[in-house]
């Protein structure tokens, strides 16, 4: 990537600019004015981001190109219209998020695709001990997966996030009347955090974490092939799974023909590595995850909401000492 300085801007820096302000603004406006009035305003804001965000436009065009190459489907090639469509899909996604927060997106409006019958396991988490890990993605609407908290009835869902604004988001969630969902800030895996997570799993609670964004600090990453090109993925979720020894599931929530579909599937039954095989084992999982992600991208090509430069070489790894 030639213009690495701009292109290489890390998502966590890039997001600081608009996302929090935007969510705050829209959360307020949604309470105040409702979706119908808010929709044109938000679309205007996103139009502004489209017009001023040259780099984001390029990044999305690159994603479309790679997706077209990888799938051999030429109709997926980027055009201004298709790239713009991606931004509009994001505006739509933000509006839906507010509906989710406000409890206006009901469970019966969401289709659950759960071939491995994971939902009953989620519901039974409370009685039968062990919780599980859900690895999510920024393809589609991560927030609709919050409906899972409702699916799980009384089972709390802990969402692990990298943002420093956890307290703020938790307050927003609280205001929105959300109680089963807890955000936990994870910047680095440390013993106290691991113990806390292990105890939550033992109580039957579930942990959700995104598998497609590399944290800025203290993050181990691994580069695997994604849509035909090497991209860095975080090791964190998989290290966590191996250390906590609990089943890992993938989830993804796509809007297909105006209706949300939650895909929920078992990924690893008993994550563990042999001595000396940790890195290789994790790389294998991440590669398999990237392949699954690529297939999901084809189901909803315009809902890839990673607007930063995704295909970057991994940052040089210093061994973060114990």
């Amino acid at each position, binding site marked *: 990537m030639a213009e690495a300085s701009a292109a290489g801007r890390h998502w966590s820096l890039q997001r600081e600019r608009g996302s929090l302000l935007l969510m705050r603004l829209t959360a307020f406006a949604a309470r105040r004015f409702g979706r119908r009035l808010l929709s044109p305003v938000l679309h205007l804001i996103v139009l502004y981001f489209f017009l001023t965000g040259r780099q984001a436009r390029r990044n999305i065009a690159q994603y479309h190109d790679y997706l077209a190459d990888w799938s051999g489907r030429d109709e997926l090639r980027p055009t201004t219209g298709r790239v713009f469509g991606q931004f509009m899909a994001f505006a739509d996604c933000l509006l839906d998020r507010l509906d989710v927060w406000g409890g206006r997106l009901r469970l019966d409006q969401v289709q659950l695709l759960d071939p491995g019958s994971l939902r009953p396991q989620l519901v039974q988490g409370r009685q039968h001990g062990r919780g599980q890990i859900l690895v999510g993605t920024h393809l589609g609407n991560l927030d609709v997966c919050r409906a899972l908290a409702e699916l799980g009835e009384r089972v709390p869902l802990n969402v692990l996030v990298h943002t420093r604004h956890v307290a703020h988001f938790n307050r927003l969630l609280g205001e929105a009347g959300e109680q089963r969902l807890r955000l936990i800030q994870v910047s680095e*895996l*440390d*013993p*106290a*955090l*691991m*113990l806390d997570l*292990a105890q939550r799993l033992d109580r039957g609670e579930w942990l959700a974490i995104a598998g497609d964004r590399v944290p800025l600090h203290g993050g181990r990453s691994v580069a695997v092939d994604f849509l035909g090109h090497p991209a860095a993925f975080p090791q964190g979720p998989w*290290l966590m799974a191996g*250390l*906590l020894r609990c089943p890992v599931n993938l989830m993804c929530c796509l809007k297909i023909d105006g209706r949300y579909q939650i895909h929920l599937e078992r990924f690893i039954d008993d994550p563990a590595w*042999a*001595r000396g095989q*940790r890195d290789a084992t994790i790389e294998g999982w991440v590669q398999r995850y990237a392949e699954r992600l690529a297939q999901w991208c084809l189901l909803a090509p315009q809902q890839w909401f990673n607007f930063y430069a995704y295909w970057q070489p991994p940052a040089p790894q210093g*061994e*973060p*000492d*114990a």
Partner: protein
Amino acid sequence: MNAPASTALQQEIAQLIIDTLNLEDLTPADIPPEQPLFGQGLGLDSVDALELALALQKRYAIRIASDDKDARRHFATVASLAAFVETQQQAACAG
């Protein structure tokens, strides 16, 4: 100075290290209390440390604070780990 014979707790911790990290080809006797666990010694790394910390916390019902600046020192050897566990347990009883 001769290496002192290891205590029961030290042996227990050496066994815990072996079980937790799948070091099947070792016995507690292969991990002398004063041998460094990381780097040049046993060759463990930071993820091993995390796995070990999790196992120790569960086994001995102690808690390792996330902002503990001395964590590195506690995890240096089996002997330092044993001393740390003892201190934590005493603190828990006292508290």
